[in-house]
């Protein structure tokens, strides 16, 4: 298949089975963990991995969780995540995980078993066209049809997954070729004429960008997941501090700029802060870094573009530039490299900043709105309060994973992430059920770290079987269940847009989560009184070697504010009734 992958000539090439080659490739890539689940088509591979001790295999309880855990491992470490699943249902179960990683540009190599080559296309037992099924949600995929192609293909898969705009790569391997024998030669390098991501930004464009930034009156820096994935946070902090510009992060970008820093104006977007959205809307020069102006971030693109501003956009993926919003100065390249070039050019400028005093006065006025203010109650637990206390108890140092819904937004709004790769959530696909397997991936990435999974009673039940995996490996994760007995975000939209018709958004017949956790050998806690929140969190995190499932019974009617409704402009936020009435009172 492959004239382009360079084969190193190795006179000591060892002859081995395809299964041993797969395992050897993973060891060559210095993989530490493979998350997976065995089955017929991968039995040879499972036999081969039994006989090695290079990487550790983590047995999950459902293939979806294997891919999510590998995904979180990658988000937390920056390494390529690896999952191994069998053919047919194993492969299709993995698809949600793969699509989740694809939407957030996470580098994964997913190895799936396939029926033997002669059986392909015969509707064989546990056969599915995995290459066809995953085509729309992978960066690339391969069906390996000959044992000699296994090593060069896996080499390419890792290379493609982690370079350029990262993403998941599927390698589908028929069972028979894992039994065939070939010489094992792992290529040292990969050269592909069809794939050469641009890493170095165009110097002319970068100079132009610096000039524009220095001429700005109302500058704004907006960074996304790309800044975190591209390890550009340190360079960005340097640039932003030198310029004294305000910074906002997207949901995916949280931690890219320290949330406790004076220049940070909070997350922007549908549930962004008032000051972030207003600054984004009214700035005159916008520096976008590793972000893609998506619908949850800028709201209605026409409304956004109605305000004139000059946009500089740094992204490693040319197709992300000028996709939804026309960009004035595109810079294609690796964010870290481009930002470092910008810092160098800025250092050579005579005037290294611009007067932003008036702009900061305006921003501080917007800050005064205090859009994240909520009413503390001493009778019912407010979900925001739990997140705030979690931040305090963990000293802002925890890896925080979330599922999808209201709790995800509260986690993003109230946990102040000062470091990149600490906030792990499904931003693009919005996959309920990621939280627990994500927490597993984080705990494997850093076994001594505090890992909290902020979740809802809807989401947690979508991968609750992983409580068993956590028991098997003794993972001391803390589940923070914000249990409002509703599919909260659905309920919120039904309240706002469907005249309170709560169609199927109520969670009836919930399990006793405490007993459920205990049945797996975990610690279960139920917290109903606001006064107990902080103490319970401290108690849980003091149990350093225990998995603790904390069931917080929270206010059923709480909504996420501010909110930019679908189709509305970014500055047309709905504020919480409390904030709105306070502002009215001040008038």
């Amino acid at each position, binding site marked *: 298949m492959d*004239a382009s992958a360079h084969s190193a000539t190795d006179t000591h090439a060892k002859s081995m089975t395809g299964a041993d080659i797969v395992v050897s490739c993973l060891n060559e890539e210095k993989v530490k963990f493979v998350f997976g689940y065995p089955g017929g088509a991968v039995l040879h591979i499972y036999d081969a991995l039994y006989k090695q001790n290079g990487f550790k295999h983590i047995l999950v309880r459902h293939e979806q969780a294997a891919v999510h855990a590998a995904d979180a491992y990658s988000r937390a470490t920056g390494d390529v995540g690896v999952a191994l699943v069998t053919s047919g249902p194993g492969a299709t179960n993995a698809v949600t995980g793969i699509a989740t990683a694809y939407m957030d540009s996470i580098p994964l190599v997913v190895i799936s078993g396939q029926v033997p080559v002669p059986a392909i296309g015969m509707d064989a037992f546990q056969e599915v066209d995995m290459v066809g099924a995953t085509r729309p949600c992978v*960066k*690339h995929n391969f069906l390996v049809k000959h044992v000699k192609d296994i090593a060069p293909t896996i080499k390419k898969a890792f290379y493609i997954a982690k370079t350029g705009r990262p993403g998941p790569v599927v390698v589908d391997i028929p069972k028979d070729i894992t039994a065939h024998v070939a010489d094992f030669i792992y290529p040292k390098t990969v050269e*592909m004429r*069809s794939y050469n991501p641009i890493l170095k930004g165009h110097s002319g464009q970068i100079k132009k960008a610096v000039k524009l930034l220095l001429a700005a009156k109302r500058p704004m820096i907006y960074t996304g997941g790309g800044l975190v994935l591209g390890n550009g946070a340190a360079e960005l902090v340097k640039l932003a501090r030198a310029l004294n510009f305000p910074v906002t992060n997207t949901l995916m970008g949280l931690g890219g700029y320290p949330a406790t820093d004076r220049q940070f104006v909070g997350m922007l977007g549908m549930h962004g802060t008032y000051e972030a959205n207003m600054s984004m809307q009214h700035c005159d020069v916008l520096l976008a870094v590793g972000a893609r102006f998506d619908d949850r971030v800028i709201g209605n693109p026409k409304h956004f573009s109605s305000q004139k501003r000059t946009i500089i956009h740094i992204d490693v993926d040319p*197709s992300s530039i000028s996709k939804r919003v026309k960009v004035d100065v595109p810079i294609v390249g690796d964010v870290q490299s481009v930002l470092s070039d910008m810092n160098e050019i800025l250092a050579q400028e005579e005037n290294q900043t611009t007067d932003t005093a008036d702009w900061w006065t305006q921003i501080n006025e917007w800050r005064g709105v205090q859009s994240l203010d909520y009413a503390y109650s001493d009778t019912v637990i407010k979900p925001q309060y739990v997140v705030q206390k979690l931040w305090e108890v963990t000293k802002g140092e925890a890896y925080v994973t979330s599922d999808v819904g209201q709790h995800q937004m509260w986690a993003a709004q109230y946990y102040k992430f000062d470091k990149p790769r600490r906030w792990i959530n499904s931003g693009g696909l919005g996959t309920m059920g990621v939280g627990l397997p994500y927490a597993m991936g984080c705990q494997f990435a850093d076994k001594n770290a505090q890992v909290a999974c902020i979740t809802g009673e809807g989401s947690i039940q979508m991968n609750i079987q992983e409580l068993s995996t956590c028991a098997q490996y003794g993972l001391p994760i803390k589940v923070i269940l914000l249990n409002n007995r509703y599919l909260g975000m659905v309920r919120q939209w039904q309240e706002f847009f469907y005249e309170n018709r709560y169609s199927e958004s109520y969670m009836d017949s919930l399990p006793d989560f405490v007993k459920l956790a205990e049945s797996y050998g975990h610690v279960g806690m139920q917290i109903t009184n606001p006064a107990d929140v902080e103490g319970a969190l401290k108690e849980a995190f003091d149990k350093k070697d225990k998995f603790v499932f904390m069931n917080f019974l929270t206010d059923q009617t709480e909504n996420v504010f501010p909110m930019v409704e679908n189709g509305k402009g970014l500055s047309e936020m709905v504020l919480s009734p409390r904030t709105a009435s306070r502002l009215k009172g001040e008038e």
Partner: protein
Amino acid sequence: MRHIISLLMENEAGALSRVAGLFSARGYNIESLTVAVTEDPTLSRMTIVTTGSDDVIEQIIKQLNKLIDVVKVLDLNDGKHIERELMLVKVKATGVHKDEMKRMCDIFRGRIIDVADNSYTIELTGSCSKLDAFIEAIDRSAILETVRTGASGIGRGDRILKV
């Protein structure tokens, strides 16, 4: 606006479906798509005729470039180019149609490549609009069957798409 896009891609299984899948997944139009191997057996060349605003075409080119198997993409509309399409038309060749079809075929510089008792099969090459014009020009009721290849395009003179 109508654009004709040429691309070179690795001649590998599934490469065509990646391009076709991209167009359907992102809701881009395909008027025609042709593909065949080039003089280099490791490369396939594809010609895609599509329509869209400048922004859409820009995205199509970027998205095509993003496919791992795609080596090079060229929007032929960016310069002078030639396009040709082959059409085979089976027409009634009885009564009044017999001479008429022969005459029209000559006018359009087509060739009759199969003669049967009641029909001719005409081979016609040209730009898509020329083939459309032929269909317009002959009596609709005389058409038994048509088959078109879709356009193939190439740049003029020094505009060369090669690895």
